[in-house]
């Protein structure tokens, strides 16, 4: 769009949220047995997509379908669009089969963000389960890059088995820092595993943060979110300082189609990140 009488340079038209822009596959990296990380770069003529931690994109495999995927890359490096995906359906399996140089359509970024700016000066408690670590990773990048702005930083991660641990190398790096507390547990293991076994909520009980001055961000299966929130409340946190990322069947991603409706909310537009106190009552409703 231009401003005809202003005499200034034309302003680039905002991308149409319904129009996928072509991106090129830079890398497909295997993470676990069924999970992979897709790195995309803009095709010539396409713009990088700056994003905030917590947002998602719609990835379109031409001729197959479109899926909502949380962005799991570094928000300070928007030129690389990174998504970690579990191959479970036709479209995600098609994404898994892509090779370097193939094209993908991208719409986004969409949705609300994790409250990393509002959390300045407070302890950060990140609780992730399974592939829920992927939408949390941009927060980790951001918080560690701006470490002085936060109090204690705690990352609690639960996976199914040791083989299902996502970003194992980065977890080791983060744990090796002296300014972050990283705890990993798995639900089941053989005796070769030297780490913790048990549910992620158990880690909350003994985690070193100040509940009166902490912001929690939870991502994982809904049952885990409920139990993790309860464990945080037991530690003395309020539901106003707990934020969760919800997963629903996003289609249009702009709050028009209603596929992702959750009570009075559209997860694509009002979420996926919600303050827990806003949606806690909906967790008990089977109809939604």
């Amino acid at each position, binding site marked *: 769009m231009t401003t005809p009488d202003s005499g200034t340079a034309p302003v680039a038209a905002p991308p149409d949220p319904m129009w996928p822009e072509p991106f090129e596959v830079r890398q497909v990296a295997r993470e676990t047995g069924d999970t992979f990380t897709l790195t995309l770069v803009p095709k010539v003529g396409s713009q990088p997509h700056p994003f905030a931690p917590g947002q998602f994109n719609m990835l379109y495999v031409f001729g197959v379908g479109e899926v909502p995927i949380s962005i799991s890359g570094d928000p300070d490096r928007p030129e690389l669009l990174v998504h970690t995906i579990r191959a479970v359906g036709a479209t995600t399996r098609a994404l898994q089969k892509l090779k370097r140089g193939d094209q993908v359509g991208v719409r986004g970024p969409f949705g609300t963000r994790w409250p990393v700016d509002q959390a300045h000066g407070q302890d950060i408690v990140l609780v992730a389960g399974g592939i829920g670590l992927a939408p949390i990773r941009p927060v980790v990048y951001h918080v560690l890059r701006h470490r002085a702005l936060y109090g204690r930083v705690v990352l609690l991660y639960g996976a199914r088995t040791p083989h299902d641990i996502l970003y194992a190398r980065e977890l080791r790096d983060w744990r090796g820092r002296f300014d972050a507390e990283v705890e990993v547990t798995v639900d089941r293991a*053989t005796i070769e595993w030297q780490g913790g076994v048990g549910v992620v909520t158990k880690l909350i009980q003994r985690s070193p943060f100040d509940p009166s001055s902490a912001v929690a961000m939870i991502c994982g299966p809904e049952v885990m979110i409920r139990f993790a929130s309860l464990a945080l409340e037991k530690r003395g946190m309020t539901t106003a300082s707990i934020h969760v990322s919800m997963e629903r069947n996003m289609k249009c991603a702009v709050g028009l189609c209603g596929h992702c409706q959750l009570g009075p909310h559209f997860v694509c537009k009002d979420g996926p990140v919600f303050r827990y106190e806003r949606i806690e009552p909906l967790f008990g409703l089977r109809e939604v």
Partner: protein
Amino acid sequence: MTIQSFEKVLAEHPFFKGLRPEHLDTLVGCAANVRFTAGDFLFREGQRIDHFWVIREGKVTVEVFVPNKGEVTIETVEGGEVLGWSWLFPPYKAHFDARALTHVRALSLDGACLRGKCEKDTVLGYEFMRRFNQLIVERLEATRMQLLDLYGDDDAR
């Protein structure tokens, strides 16, 4: 390294937080310092158990042997937690193996001694039962969550 009194160690342990001083005194009379090196068994399945362990430092795995699978770790218990409740209920036999995964420092509490004291002092007995019930409820909740297999295929995103 400073040597702390049993009383201080117990009073600062999360499991005993808020316990009355006279009850802490009672506990101290039943406590002993123990250490395990990695690989040592604290107890084996089927063994009579007359103790429980207040883990101060290190990590213990609770395991079960499954034919054709070998040993499977059910959970790990770490510093700040308590291990063992078989001492509370007849026939006082361990249901699982417990093995030190790392060097472990703990207090071992004599359950037979404590059972007798709890019978005589019902306030202490109630307090103990309340705390162990809470522990058992937490472990039950955790087990239920593990049974749900939360991170299976339904967790696709």
